[in-house]
């Protein structure tokens, strides 16, 4: 067990974990979809709305100034956490999907021309596929896919030959949400930068399980959602290098993001405001700030160590089940175990497992091309957070036995 890490104490910080489902204690294994929230986060939102609640950046009045300061403190905190150079490299969005749409659109408008190419991987979430498909259709550019081998591993050698002088950007996930596979993002970034190609990382799952240092990674964009990282829904983060953010045009337009407006001509504000329009989600940013503080108080290195141990425990036991197929099991993985049971439709298995008080997800996990790659309708996905226990992994084991008994 990791030092300084007592999972039973930690569980006390999460009110939602302590409930019964169909009379059985909840086992929450749908963390890759969204995480539960520590009470400091929930409390911070209530407190915000009960005290300094205001619109920001606008008023000369006291509350507005307080809210603005809290909002910008949160931005600074994220900047430090990611080890970005400037806080204006941190753009607030409504989620990872919003962030990817922003980049696909703004980068695409500026840099994509007919015949150009964009590269993504075969392990992407729909959020990192469809926006690129759409902008490629609009610009008559070509979307190319880094393939995976049968064990779910990216074929990096092919990437090398795919990159050419028409490649404008590469966008890949840090950790696959459907299989838990960790991608060699640092290597991909190096390979791409050698040819002068910028790289965006979809960190929706990556930020949750890895300490992320954007300077060390040297990625050009990195994005994620607060709600999967113990923070509230409704907030996402886009990190972008200043140089590139300055070069690409704004995405959404309206208040805040402008300098001057006449009916003839509008000039845009500086970073980060150029990419942030409308009233920002101050309450949830303050909530997310608290989530980051909470993570730091436990220590991401402790979280990583414990999660690895838990993941290995669960994986090693699951593979012993007769008739189980675990996808991507030859790869370095974390957080997610994606599997099927021989002769049993994942939807059926999920229905029974649900009745046993376990929250896990079945289906294609918004990654249909991954399912198509393995020629399956979907999988059962158990996804773990640092508040899950080995005991819960055992409960899952028992549930799978029950499923096989009933459906096998």
């Amino acid at each position: 067990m990791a030092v300084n890490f007592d999972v039973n104490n930690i569980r006390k910080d999460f009110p939602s974990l302590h409930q019964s489902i169909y009379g059985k204690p909840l086992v929450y294994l749908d963390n890759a979809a969204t995480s539960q929230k520590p009470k400091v986060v929930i409390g911070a939102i209530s407190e915000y709305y009960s005290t300094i609640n205001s619109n920001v950046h606008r008023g000369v009045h006291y509350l507005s100034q307080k809210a603005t300061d809290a909002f910008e403190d949160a931005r600074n905190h994220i900047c430090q956490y990611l080890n970005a150079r400037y806080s204006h490299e941190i753009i607030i969005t409504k989620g990872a999907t919003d962030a990817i749409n922003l980049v696909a659109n703004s980068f695409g408008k500026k840099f994509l021309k007919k015949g150009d190419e964009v590269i993504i991987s075969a392990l992407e979430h729909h959020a990192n596929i469809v926006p690129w498909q759409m902008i490629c259709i609009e610009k008559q550019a070509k979307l190319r896919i880094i393939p995976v081998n049968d064990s779910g591993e990216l074929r990096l050698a092919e990437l090398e030959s795919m990159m050419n002088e028409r490649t404008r950007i590469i966008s890949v996930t840090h950790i696959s949400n459907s299989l838990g596979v960790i991608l060699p993002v640092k290597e991909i970034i190096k390979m791409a930068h050698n040819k002068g190609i910028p790289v965006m990382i979809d960190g929706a799952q990556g930020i949750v399980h890895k300490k992320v240092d954007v300077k060390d990674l040297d990625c050009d964009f990195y994005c994620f959602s607060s709600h999967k990282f113990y923070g509230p829904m409704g907030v996402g983060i886009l990190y972008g290098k200043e140089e590139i953010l300055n070069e690409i045009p704004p995405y959404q337009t309206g208040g805040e993001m402008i300098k001057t407006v006449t009916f003839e001509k509008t000039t845009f504000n500086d970073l980060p405001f150029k990419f942030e329009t409308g009233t920002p989600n101050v309450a949830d940013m303050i909530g997310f700030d608290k989530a980051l503080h909470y993570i730091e108080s436990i220590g991401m290195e402790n979280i990583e160590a414990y999660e690895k141990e838990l993941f290995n425990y669960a994986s090693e036991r699951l593979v012993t089940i007769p008739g189980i197929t675990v996808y991507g099991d030859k790869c370095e993985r974390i957080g997610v175990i994606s599997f099927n049971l021989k002769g049993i439709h994942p939807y059926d298995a999920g229905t029974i497992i649900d009745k046993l008080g376990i929250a896990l997800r079945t289906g294609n996990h918004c990654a249909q091309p991954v399912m198509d790659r393995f020629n399956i309708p979907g999988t059962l996905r158990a996804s773990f957070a640092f508040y899950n226990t080995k005991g819960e992994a055992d409960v899952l084991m028992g549930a799978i036995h029950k499923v096989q008994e009933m459906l096998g």
Partner: protein
Amino acid sequence: MSIQEQAQKIIDEFAIFEDWMDKYNYLIEMGKSLPVIDEKYKTDQYLISGCQSKVWLSAEMQDGVIVFKADSDAVITKGIVNLLIRVLSNQRPDDILNSNLNFIDQVGLKEHLSPTRSNGLVSMIKQMKLYALVFKTKMEVNG
């Protein structure tokens, strides 16, 4: 038997189960034992897309009643499909259009018919009523 009587029969069958596991075992039995559609209908044309589990549905008019046949790739879904077929197949278009399917609620399977559940059942019911409407209109036009 009328729709109402069929539904009551199913409610009676389920009444004997003490817990959810017996109920689901019975559903699974029903799903497994009954081949309900010809293989030739298991094509995209008859497919009702429910994202997580697939449902195929065919309908034919025979002597004033509609004969539905259906199948699913998930066995629990198929079990429920069978309940719906037992109740709605061999009924007249008007009766199908006016039917309510409260019995699903009464046997404790309501959650499977939530419009946000992506198992194809809700779309299947919609499709059954649509068939009833089409056949009814045809009958009126022709006769």
